[in-house]
């Protein structure tokens, strides 16, 4: 899961970056000093299910406090027990994540290309800092595949068969790259297929939730594809 605050150019004439280094601390494993919580104003009831993201964003913007990841601060978390509960959890989390972004007061268009293969943001672009709202979008192989697929279908529908075929090829290329994580599970084919389909569905649910929830909160957000990680890396 990528949670990142885009560049903020409001406080300095040049780039001032606040990044959560791809990760934030989720509430199932977060210890806080009371004086820090008081300073930050505690948890925001309006943040609903993203109260930990909101708190970490405010901490990132605070001049006084820092967040530390410590070796050995480890919990083991249980999975949801049913498919429906899993979808509900991802939907709820995604739908409310727009609020912390809205609260940061950041503006402008912030676009990122996230490389699934390299597990990092490979390129970023900042546009229109004067825009009165925030657009923060992460593009990945899955998004590229989706765009190529839609464009291919549109070309085919309008009779541009050569363009449709070329775009279908692009779709296949990007989709193949996206499925790399699903192909390398080491599971039997049927189980790998089920896991891959679940992964795809969850990506669709989560993206839709973030997009719709963001619109509700007055920001346009497109999250990165959910990827497997071996552990937290600090940017």
């Amino acid at each position, binding site marked *: 899961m990528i949670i990142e605050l885009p560049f903020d150019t409001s406080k300095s004439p*040049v*780039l001032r970056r606040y990044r959560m280094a791809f990760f934030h601390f989720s509430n199932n*494993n*977060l210890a806080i000093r009371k004086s820090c919580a008081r300073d930050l104003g505690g*948890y925001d009831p309006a943040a609903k299910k993203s109260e930990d993201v909101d708190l*970490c964003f405010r901490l990132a913007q605070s001049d006084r406090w820092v967040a530390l990841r*410590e070796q050995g601060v480890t*919990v083991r978390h249980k999975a949801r027990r049913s498919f429906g509960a899993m979808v509900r959890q991802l939907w709820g989390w995604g739908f409310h994540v727009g609020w912390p972004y809205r609260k940061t007061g950041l503006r402008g268009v912030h676009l990122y290309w996230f490389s699934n293969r390299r597990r990092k943001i490979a390129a970023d672009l900042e546009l229109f800092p004067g825009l009165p709202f925030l657009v923060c979008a992460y593009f990945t192989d899955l998004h590229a595949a989706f765009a190529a697929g839609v464009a291919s279908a549109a070309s085919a529908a309008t009779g541009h068969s050569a363009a449709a075929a070329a775009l279908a090829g692009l779709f296949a290329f990007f989709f193949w790259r996206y499925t790399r994580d699903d192909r390398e599970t080491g599971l039997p084919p049927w189980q790998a297929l089920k896991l891959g389909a*679940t992964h795809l569905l969850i990506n669709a649910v989560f993206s839709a939730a973030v997009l719709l929830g963001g619109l509700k909160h007055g920001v346009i957000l497109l999250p990165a594809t959910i990827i497997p990680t071996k552990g937290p890396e600090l940017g």
Partner: protein
Amino acid sequence: MPGPVQGVVIEHQLASRLRSRRFRPRASPVQILQRLLVLLNLWPFEGLLRALYRVALRRVIGRVAAHPGVQAVYGTGSFFDGGRCLLGLSDVDFFIVLRPAVERLDLDRLEIGALYERERRLFPFLGPWYEKEQSLVFLGEVARGFPLLESFRIRASQGRLKLIAGEAVPAALLEGCGSLRDAVVEAESLLRVAASRRDVHSANLRFWKKLFDKLLGCARIAGLHAFERCARAREDLKFLEEDEAALYFRRADPAEQFERFDALARELFAQIALQAPSSDIEVQVEPASLVEARAESPALAALGRRIDFAVRTLPPGRLGPFPRFSQIAIEEPLTVLGLRGPLHTGLRAAMAALAAHGAEDESWLVEAAISYLVVKLEGGVDVFPLSPLLYPDLGARLAGAPGRFSAVRALHQEERSLARGALRALGTLYAQHDGRIHKLPFPCIYREDDRVVLRDVWHRLRGLVALEEGREISDPRALAAHLGHAHPRSAAFLAELADWSLHLNGHGPARRFSNNLFRCAHQFMAKVLEGGRDIEVMPHQIHLGLSVGIITRDRAADLREALQSLTSQARPPDEVYVVDNGSTDGTEGVLADFKSLLPLRHVHLAEASIPKARNAVLEGAAHEIVCFTDDDCVLDPGWLAAIERAFLRADNIGVVGGFVQHHQAPERSTVDSYYGRYHHNTT
């Protein structure tokens, strides 16, 4: 990027130098473009190119110099010298001098870099920021006692610094520039360039002319004018008199030129040693038990398939008799390669083998008259020449005859005084970072690597003892005992610190270590590096009040498991505060069962709101640190102990987090697999 953590940030200058100085090859299309540009160095194009350079400098340097953190920008290189230069090649270089208030950790460095790169987009020939970043001069660091950048000192002494913008650095700062040590350090860095540049750069004579000219410039600084004249008169160096543009198109054999360059450097060092007064230095060095052994390393095996060499190992310790600012610490036994063929071929093969098969930080010493340390770093390989003048003890170590060696007195004294200054400056940095993490804009989550922090601690303590007492003590336990004798009130702490270091590096048994060792180490270092006597540090075991906060709703069975894991904590909780967010199952009964096992308090909050429930915990908890977890989590036995250790590191740590791993469900399912692979192990 590695996490900028407190311990690492406290100097770890070497790593940052190594990383950022790494050579990065240019793409071949750039080479082609460069050739075209060189052809344009003729009238009338040359005038146009020069004008373009001026515009670029005015624009880019003007913006950089306007940054409030920048005091001055100095230009250097043949473009500023007024002589002939090849425009289009990197003949424009500059030093950016930062005001005393600017710290290496401050945002300004990043800001200036971003500003530079943004402006440079129109003028790519000015060179990328990672090259310029090496030329940042932090006046604050110099004021503290760290040495001024050697390349800056050399150019100042040669009168090759031209102030382009801002206000000049104080003249007192430049006093003593152009010392013998500066010349030797510069010669070492030239050897590094000669050894590491790929053939695509070094296969023309212009490249070698620049290097030879600079090396002979070092001879001039060392006062060896006759040596310079003789060298220039040599038949094989006649090309130094020729025009650069013509030489750019004349092929050179990199191997042949490197051997020639290495030989000239050896002659220069020998002349310096011969002419400058020497002293016999005695340093107690541990016996270097060199053993004929072929270490188990895939990179070494790969090298063995390409060239012939003998392998020995050098025990851990330091390279160089004094704690140099950019000193190289050898933590593990160092592989020493005795080549049985040309040096250039061997070095190139070693670099290639390490790049392809080497482990991170794997280092080899290629033994020669001037030995070379080849180091595998994140994403690349670098080479460091070790001149016999600055590493006079290396020969003795390699020969297994420690104890006494001869060193040039002037170099020895300057190295000594620089080492003293640098260690004292490090002491002030340790004091500054005692209990406070310098907040950086990125990343916002910090992480301490205790192994790195302690490696630096022992490395500097070894250097301090070598400097002050002329004794070499490598083993942390022996060093702790030695220092404990001088500082009896810190003896127990030092002994435990040594055990902890050894344990972290897999050389000592696991046991429960005190939780405040990190901070005590900072305090001890701050005082000992500033010459403190019988140092006392704060207690190395401290108890913080920890409340555990759990929000629950209708998960009685999971809550039982979570509470059960709390009962087996190595460091028991001082309070467990549970907010029941409207449960209707048997949660009440579960809580009653744990009343006698845990210091449990619970409240009901009828409204189902997680943020409100968490605020209720924050308000109701009895202790300053509130550790949140969920009712569907199982805690590792060391969870609370690790949280307590983390908060003790610094007073401005507001939040501590860690790792969320997957708890395998009793029955496998696609949902469980999904969480295990994509959802957990990430935050």
